[in-house]
């Protein structure tokens, strides 16, 4: 391996910034010259392939680092990085825009999200947060939270902060988060009255989508069968009881009043600051108010309206009557997090987001075992997913005589960010409000069929078990991302890619009217006289060296003949653009 001396400054920087990694980094540099770590990728292509799975797209910095330190240490470094946060920036931008009498909206959140995806150094964490945002869904498509630009950004930060923590912590933080509360109605959910019952929405979806699913599972995610039949994880009675657990929650800064009469208490108050809007909700149970007080909003009874009835929840577990609200919620989190479904249910979906739509049962079981043995340590789980032999050693690409359902369709958004990172897109300067424009005013949900925290419903853009009619459904194979690929979104996403390539490169004139990253074409234009070298750069940067010979011929012919006479820049962006349209780029193996 040709280990360039250029990597030394990068290593030293990391060593200075991350003391815990110092010893091993030190060893690599000084102990024995430039050791190749035992688990280093065998080639730059393999490094790029790994980073396609683990980041928002391989770039030279991460490739160099990964090849220098190997998979294990690269992952450990990433696990140790603090989360790059969005909320402080978005709050400042929103405040500046309000002060400048400008509109504010989800564009501010999305610009920051795409900036982090493209430039944040904690790529693994950001990518995990994005994967988690497709399980623990909140969405700006809901009128309940569409205006909550800063709190929604903070929700994204919550996912990034908890990305490598314990699952139960994540579940609890999501449950207490007011943005989730408003999205799925645990927020201001009331104990039963003479005529009403608690809202069942969060009780249902926290179990169906965030934790255990509808039927009991084996550890390899296959359904657990009793007498040949699947077994439901819960029934409507459990939902009704669990709904009572999620009552009494409101904004953290809702005033609880003063004095013996709690004068000024207002369950419907609060939300006075952004922090009030995104800090964990407080619960108005008996820990704050006597049972008899009208402000006591949490249901401490069971299902019959009397004081001393237990709540029978998931798996028949009992939450005793008369408890404080936070105790009830804590019990509920413990009960859910202890369910044997969690490990296969969550592990399987994470594998689908990072590696392959159809993991083998053994792969799921290996990851789920790590999940259980680590008490749901999501960092350990992700490491197990990415270092598993099924992730690192794909089956041979195959000939036509062989079937190949390995891998996944790349998400349309990841096709964009990977292109930006492959060609060192330069972000525009911040505007006078401190905002860095990344989206080019793209309506991602419409154009791509997906957008960050923009799912049409809590069921995400696609479901884990979606099977595209045809070869997938015939063979009982899942193809989640194909659910949003159709004649319409394909055209609109491709036209967006055109806008982000043909109209968005360094040196273009005139400049586009809306700010967006400008890709750097010099790695291509430097070889404009040698089409084969240009195609080789595309192959390495976008397809980790897997480009078929026929595609290489097609691209090479395009440069030599179809674009004969075009400018170097047009040849360069045309290569990128046509590759973004290609079936080979669409599939991640």
């Amino acid at each position, binding site marked *: 391996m040709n280990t360039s001396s250029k990597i030394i400054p990068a290593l030293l920087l990391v060593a200075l910034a991350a003391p815990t990694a110092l010893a091993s980094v030190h060893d690599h540099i000084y102990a024995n010259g430039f050791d190749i770590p035992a688990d280093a990728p065998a080639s730059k292509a393999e490094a790029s392939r790994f980073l396609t799975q683990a980041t928002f797209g391989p770039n030279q910095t991460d490739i160099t680092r990964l090849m220098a330190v190997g998979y294990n240490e690269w992952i450990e470094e990433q696990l140790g990085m603090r989360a790059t946060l969005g909320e402080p920036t978005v709050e400042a931008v929103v405040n500046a825009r309000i002060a400048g009498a400008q509109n504010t909206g989800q564009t501010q959140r999305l610009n920051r999200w795409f900036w982090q995806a493209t430039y944040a150094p904690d790529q693994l964490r950001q990518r995990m947060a994005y994967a988690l945002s497709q399980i623990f869904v909140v969405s700006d*498509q809901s*009128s309940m939270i569409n205006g909550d630009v800063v709190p929604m950004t903070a929700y994204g930060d919550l996912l990034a902060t908890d990305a490598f923590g314990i699952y139960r912590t994540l579940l609890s933080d999501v449950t207490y988060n007011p943005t989730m509360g408003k999205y799925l*109605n645990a927020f*201001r959910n*009331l104990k039963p009255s003479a*005529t*009403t*019952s608690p*809202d*069942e*929405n969060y009780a*249902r979806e926290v179990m169906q989508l965030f934790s255990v699913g509808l039927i009991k599972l084996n550890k390899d995610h296959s359904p657990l069968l009793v007498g040949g039949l699947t077994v439901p994880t819960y029934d*409507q009675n459990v*939902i*009704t009881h669990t*709904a009572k657990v999620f009552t009494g929650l409101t904004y953290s800064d809702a005033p609880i009043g003063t004095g013996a009469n709690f004068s000024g208490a207002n369950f419907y108050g609060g939300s006075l600051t952004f922090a009030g809007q995104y800090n964990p909700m407080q619960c108005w149970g008996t820990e704050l108010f006597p049972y008899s007080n009208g402000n006591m909003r949490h249901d401490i009874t069971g299902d019959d309206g009397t004081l001393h009835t237990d709540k029978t929840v998931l798996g028949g577990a009992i939450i005793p009557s008369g408890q404080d609200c936070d105790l009830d919620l804590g019990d509920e989190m413990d009960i859910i997090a202890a369910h044997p479904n969690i490990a296969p249910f969550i592990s399987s979906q994470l594998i689908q987001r990072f590696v392959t739509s*159809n993991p083998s049962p053994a792969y799921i079981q290996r990851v789920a075992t790590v999940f259980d043995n680590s008490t749901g340590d999501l960092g350990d789980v992700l490491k197990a997913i990415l270092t598993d032999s099924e992730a690192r050693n794909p089956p041979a*690409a*195959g000939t036509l*005589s*062989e*079937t*190949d*359902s390995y891998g*996944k369709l790349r998400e349309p958004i990841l096709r964009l960010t990977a292109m930006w990172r492959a060609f060192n897109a330069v972000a525009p300067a911040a505007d006078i409000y401190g905002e860095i424009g990344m989206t080019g005013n793209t309506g991602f949900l419409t154009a791509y069929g997906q957008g960050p925290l923009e799912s049409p*419903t809590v069921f995400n853009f696609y*479901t884990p078990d979606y*099977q*595209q*009619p*045809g070869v*997938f*459904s*015939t*063979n009982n*194979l899942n*193809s989640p991302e194909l*659910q949003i*690929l*159709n*004649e*319409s*979104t*394909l*055209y609109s996403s491709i*036209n967006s890619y*055109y*806008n982000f390539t*043909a109209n968005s490169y360094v040196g273009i004139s005139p400049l586009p009217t809306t700010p967006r990253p400008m890709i750097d074409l010099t790695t291509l234009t430097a070889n404009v006289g040698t089409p084969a070298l240009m195609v080789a750069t595309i192959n390495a940067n976008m397809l980790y060296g897997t480009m078929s010979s026929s595609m290489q011929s*097609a691209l090479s012919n*395009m440069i030599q003949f*179809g*674009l004969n006479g*075009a400018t170097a820049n047009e040849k360069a962006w*045309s290569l990128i653009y*046509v590759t973004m*349209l290609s*079936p*080979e780029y669409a*599939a991640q193996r």
Partner: protein
Amino acid sequence: MSHTRNSRRDFLNKLSLLAASGGAAALMPQLRMMNTALASTSSLTGYKALVCVYLNGGNDSWNMLVPFDSNGSNLRFDIYAAARSGVYDPAANSGGLGLALPTGSNIALQKVIDGNDASSATNQYFLHPSFTTPYLTQTPLSTLYTQGHLAFAVNVGTLTKPIVMTDYNSSAANRPPQLFSHSDQTSQWHQGNTSASSAVGWGGLCAENLQAQGANLTTDPKLALAISLAGANRFEVGSGSVPYQMSSNGLTSLSGVCNPTCTVGATSSGRDAALNSMLGETYANDFAGEYNAVLQRGRNLYNLIGPNLPPASNTYVPATAFPPNNSLASQLKTVATMIKLSKAKGYATRQIYFVQLGGFDLHSGLMSGGGNHASLLTQVGQALGAFWTSLGPTDVNAQNEVTAFTVSDFARTLQSNGSGSDHGWGGLQMVLGGAVNGGKLYANGGGPISGFPNQSLGGSGSPAPNNFSRGQMIPGIGVEQYAATLAQWMGVSATDCNTIFPNLHNFTSKNLGFV
């Protein structure tokens, strides 16, 4: 991986066999009809289209039509209001908002009679006030009902067989799987199969059945009989066919390549050649292969219909004004455009469309706030009203040939949760069209539960009503009965309906007669 599976190549081989037999298999594979081939003469007469209007999230349909008695007792309305935790009144509902519609000052406009019920004591209802407010001067749904073009199917829901409360309680096998779950209940509605999870939907199966009867007339490339304006959906997936998916924003051409013809010497033709070269390859990987297939299909169909649609052409756009800022209306306007285009070009004699409006999962803010139920129903009513107008004799001229019908995940609890309602079961659906036998309620499917249901919350009253403690209704009419009625109108035989709808044989009435 150890999947036992048919290879992509096998699949492609089957398609090429079909292509050789004259079908446009690459565009609309018809595996089930390999032996049927393509009929040279059609047994189907005229043109007909079904339009599935999916109200996504679980429409609180018991507020679309409210029982109302003018004989002074108001008994049924009082039961309804009590079940809904009182009449909605933000000033007075201190213990959580009631969800019952008030009998307001517009009641005269809202009142309707059930033409199927001769008893003046039980045949009066009022419609949601949103259905009395059309866009511009178009006909409101309330009038379309009175004119006999709109019908309600009452207490329809997922059922594998007719049951009552005792059946429900005696065995889980008597119930459809995963009641109250959005995803599962939606799938069952779309599948037309309420007993098991399936990859295919009844719209897609009907399209294939009609295809085998010669519904598709054009040569290649063929437009699929099933067309979605709202993305992927199980309803329109057949055993060997997928819907053509388009947006209501018109068909935009692909940037930087040729659409469909190239300007000689332009650089776009260079990119186009490279793209076509890649699309001409066969891909071993299923994901690359399927992406390739969708892009190819999109290119071919763009070339077929793109030049006839906005932004390229407004020739087939109906003249009728559709309400702005109404996603459902935009979709239905495109449906009207496609119907006009399809009839003019002879693309097909049968088509099945899918449109949807989201936002119905109103656990909170049902009665007030952004996106509340009244605003959603206003969008539905105005979109359907404009659609009906556009199909009129002076515009698209297809009112008697098009039937639109609603489906939704489920109805909702009658009882309030304080500001909204939760997941329920049986509910009301609407059917609109010139062929509809409207002005009536269809509440009898031949089972033990029939008629407009007793809305007393379960557990009270004698005999106990067939609903649960929060007013989740056990349906009296099964989804498969409702769907089979529509399928038969399209030309699917009663015999074939028993295949497409696997539980239909459990029901007495296999055609509810509303169309």
